[in-house]
């Protein structure tokens, strides 16, 4: 009797272990499949960025949406990020008596790191989520099927314009973020805390090099691709990967923002370590 129970529980333990391993396997396979899907999606998107006919009207519209309409957010966050850097930098540096280096500190931090990353996160939240939701709604209301049926490739109409708009808008937005941030640092460091204006800008132009600026541009360019890639992907596969209806769209939007933000930070790490 006892033996019998032992046998059964051993059997069920074995069964549960097998089930557990099976689930890990299934999950891994599914993840790899999705990564492949996302990779192919990006390749297709790039392909239609260069294969004519290119839909310039759509590109301009998306630049207006992703770029121009994000300006207010970028200006605000840039200003405050710069102001905070001004304070923090001043207090840290003045401990070593080197507050003359406030300019380069603010400049380097913004241009190399904070500018690209923060503006990418802001654009993800403001424009990326909307792009994912718009394409998701087009998917569940069969508008993408309708495009397809009219012989008009959805990649050409929806995906490529977003990728191009992201690649064009992000570096520009980042540049604006940097400029406003440096101005914010100037307001705090120079106007409030009394670093001399000549020292702030002089040291900055002395220590910030073209390579640093380029690093920022490369980063923002790749973030532009990441945002539009992830957000259009999540929108495009609404229903197929996330379920139908309003819930599917909201899921896709959330996933788009989370995935794109995480990817931005991870990719930032890799770029920084590669460009260091």
């Amino acid at each position, binding site marked *: 009797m006892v033996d019998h129970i032992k046998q059964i529980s051993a059997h069920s333990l074995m069964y549960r272990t097998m089930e557990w391993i099976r689930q890990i396997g299934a999950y891994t396979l599914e993840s790899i499949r999705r990564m492949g899907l996302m990779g192919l999606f990006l390749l297709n998107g790039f392909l239609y960025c260069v294969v004519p006919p290119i839909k310039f009207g759509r590109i301009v519209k998306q630049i207006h949406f992703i770029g121009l309409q994000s300006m207010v957010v970028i200006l605000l966050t840039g200003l405050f990020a710069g102001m905070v850097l001004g304070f923090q930098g001043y207090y840290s540096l003045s401990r070593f008596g080197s507050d003359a280096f406030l300019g380069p500190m603010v400049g380097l931090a913004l241009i190399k790191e904070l500018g690209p990353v923060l503006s990418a996160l802001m654009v993800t939240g403001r424009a990326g989520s909307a792009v994912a939701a*718009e394409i998701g*709604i*087009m998917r569940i*209301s*069969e*508008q993408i*099927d*309708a495009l*397809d*049926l*009219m*012989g*008009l490739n959805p990649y050409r109409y929806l995906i490529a314009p977003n990728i191009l708009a992201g690649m064009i808008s992000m570096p520009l937005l980042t540049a604006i973020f940097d400029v406003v941030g440096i101005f914010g640092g100037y307001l705090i460091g120079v106007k409030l805390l009394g670093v001399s204006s000549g020292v702030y800008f002089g040291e900055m132009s002395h220590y910030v090099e073209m390579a640093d600026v380029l690093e920022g541009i490369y980063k923002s360019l790749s973030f532009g691709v990441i945002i539009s890639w992830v957000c259009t992907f999540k929108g495009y596969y609404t229903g197929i990967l996330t379920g139908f209806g309003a819930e599917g769209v909201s899921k896709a939007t959330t996933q788009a923002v989370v995935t794109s933000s995480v990817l931005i930070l991870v990719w930032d790490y890799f770029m920084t370590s590669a460009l260091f």
Partner: protein
Amino acid sequence: MRTNRGPNRRLPARWSGGPAEVSAQAGLGSPGETRTMIKVENLCKSFDGHTVLDGISFEISKGEVVALIGGSGGGKSVLLKHVAGLMQPDSGRVVIDGADLRNIKREELRRLRDRLGFLFQGGALFDSMTVYENVAFPLREKSKMKEQEIRSRVLKELESVGLKGAEDKYPSQISGGMVKRAALARALVLDPEIMLFDEPTTGLDPVIGQAILELIDSCHKNISFTGIVVTHEIPRIFRFVDRVLMIYEGKLRVDASPDGLMRSDDPVVRTFLGE
């Protein structure tokens, strides 16, 4: 009664207003010729283990208009999407005008779709565009017409579906029935050779519904498309179609002329006819 289970069923020899007359009217092909335009063979499709289509086969000749009926959730829309190549079957195949959709080339598929019009059940109007822009969209993208010709064509099309005056409204600003009619105008604007209608009259009041059916009929007389009309309008649709297909539990239960269907003594059909 005519039930269809096997893939090798022959077309009915005669149906009202058959393709011979129609194609002769439109000057297409020689009278009496019956070219198969849509052929569905043993089509199976299931979603997450739930079988929706379970071995459907039928053929539709050029110029023929067929009604597709069946219970709600029975797979009518799914079948229509397979015919348009929007969904891939688990097994079986769809052949459109001799081209097998399983191994069709991208370019060929594009050309095939240029000849195809599809009215989606939900309309699928582009909601970033006005009604006018929606109907003009296929013309702007696919034809070489000048803006002025496009304008007169679109306005004519909108008038024929009774949407005069609603050109500048967005899909979110008009009623469900109006969306349906705008979508119908968009589907018909390129004079397609094959028309797939997914419930063209659902959500319309009886008067407009009748008008829409007559519009479809007159379009058919003018351009003699080959068509499938998914509908719940039984028996009103019977006057407008050559044959009726009925899907029941994933299989094709009936493939008969409207008269044949009315005379059927299959209990499922009788229930469906409302008895």
